[in-house]
């Protein structure tokens, strides 16, 4: 390698094609974008890094990597349309936990609904993780605060939720009557179940969802 240290540089700048190779190698190996000044400092005396860069840039036009200006430096970058190759995604599909699906169902049917209401309906407390998970899945989000003491936040379902479940709106969710008709519910209401649901209804703001369920309850009688 020693031969290279003093070689033709002392005499004349190498041909442009050679300068281009040099710039190519330096940019390739450098851990950071390299400025024209730095390139000129590394290239043999008399070389014109700026010109070599222009040649090189053209050479890489349309290739899988692009010579890109970053700040005042230059670097190779993956062509933007091939960015997808840089991700190796392994998708693992898991069933939502029972707690999560129940919470989601309650939000869907009772929105906007507070955490306290969800807990009341489920009869068990709702863990932070469950709500976070549903928010992360982009299936529920925060709605308006309830204008009641403590101004609790409410949860509502998102557009993603509707998309995922193929619904036009949350109103399209089948009501209890339909669930029953579909055989998803036993038709006999348990004694005392009505009391329970009435409580729930109290908790509900006079929204459409509440209406829907009033209808349902009426239909079973």
């Amino acid at each position, binding site marked *: 390698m020693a031969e290279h240290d003093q070689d033709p540089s002392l005499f004349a700048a190498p041909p442009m094609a050679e300068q281009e190779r040099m710039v190519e190698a330096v940019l390739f190996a450098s851990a950071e974008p390299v400025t024209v000044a730095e390139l000129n400092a590394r290239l043999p005396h008399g070389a014109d890094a700026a010109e070599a860069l222009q040649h090189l840039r053209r050479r890489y036009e349309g290739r899988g990597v692009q010579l890109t200006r970053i700040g005042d430096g230059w670097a190779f970058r993956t062509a933007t349309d091939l960015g997808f190759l840089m991700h190796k995604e392994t998708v693992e599909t898991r069933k*939502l936990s029972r707690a999560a699906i129940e919470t989601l169902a309650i939000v*869907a049917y009772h929105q906007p609904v507070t955490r306290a209401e969800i807990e009341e309906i489920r009869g068990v407390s709702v863990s932070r993780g469950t709500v976070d998970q549903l928010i992360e899945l982009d299936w529920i989000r925060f709605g308006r605060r309830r204008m009641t003491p403590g101004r609790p936040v409410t949860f509502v379902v998102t557009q993603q939720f509707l998309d995922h479940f193929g619904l036009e709106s949350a109103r399209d969710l*089948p009501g209890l009557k339909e669930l029953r008709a579909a055989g998803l519910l036993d038709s006999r209401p348990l004694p005392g179940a009505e009391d329970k649901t009435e409580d729930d209804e109290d908790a509900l703001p006079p929204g459409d969802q509440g209406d829907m369920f009033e209808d349902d309850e009426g239909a079973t009688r």
Partner: protein
Amino acid sequence: MSDPDPWDNVTSVEARRAAEALIVDVDGFEGPLDLLLTLSRTQKVDLRRISILQLAEQYLVFVEQARKLRIELAADYLVMAAWLAFLKSRLLLPPDPTEEGPSGEDMAAHLAFQLERLQAMREAAARLMARDHLGRDFFARGIPEDVTRVKRITYTASLLDLMQAYARIRTRDDFRPYVMDREAILTMEQALDTLRPLIGFAGDWTSLETYLPQGWTHDPARRRSATAATFAAALELAKEGRIELRQPGTFDPIEIRRKDRRDG
């Protein structure tokens, strides 16, 4: 072999100095084989034509000198010395046909092979290290864009899951998972039994719905099953050539009528 001058083979001053240095540097040797290889260089011949006898003598002299200088030699040097002394005697004495074991020539050839092989490996190592090195003479990409391995966990839930979950909550213990409810299933055989006696009267187009059995028209689940079974039964009868089916349009009521036997 009368009192061999230890430096018999050493001609030049430099070689003599080198040989002396050997002794001083005894710790610098990587064992007897390394020492033998170094000693063999004084023969200035191709390793393949080296005189093992001469080499054995050189080694034994070396060990003798070291002793005189009270240099403590490691055990393996002494083991090698004993072996070489044995080899020397084998090489010098005429072969005894009654004696077991390898001949002196075989043993010498093997030692020569070992030396040559070690020498070859040293040269190979030197050539290897003289190659261009990654990170010194040639370089890898400086800004690798690592593949981001995203392990994405998607949670799925179907609308059915959602509804079942909701139903489960709303009905509490009341809820039982959906099972095939035989009560609400009308089989095709049952539907055929209903339909057969009736078609005799179906002289004109009549909606299939009117043939649903009693008690199967109200409850939606029963009604659905009855409709399906009756439809299947109607197809069966049509196959038998006993009735005709028609449907004026998509989703319109399906109608049946008795097929006249006159053309059959």
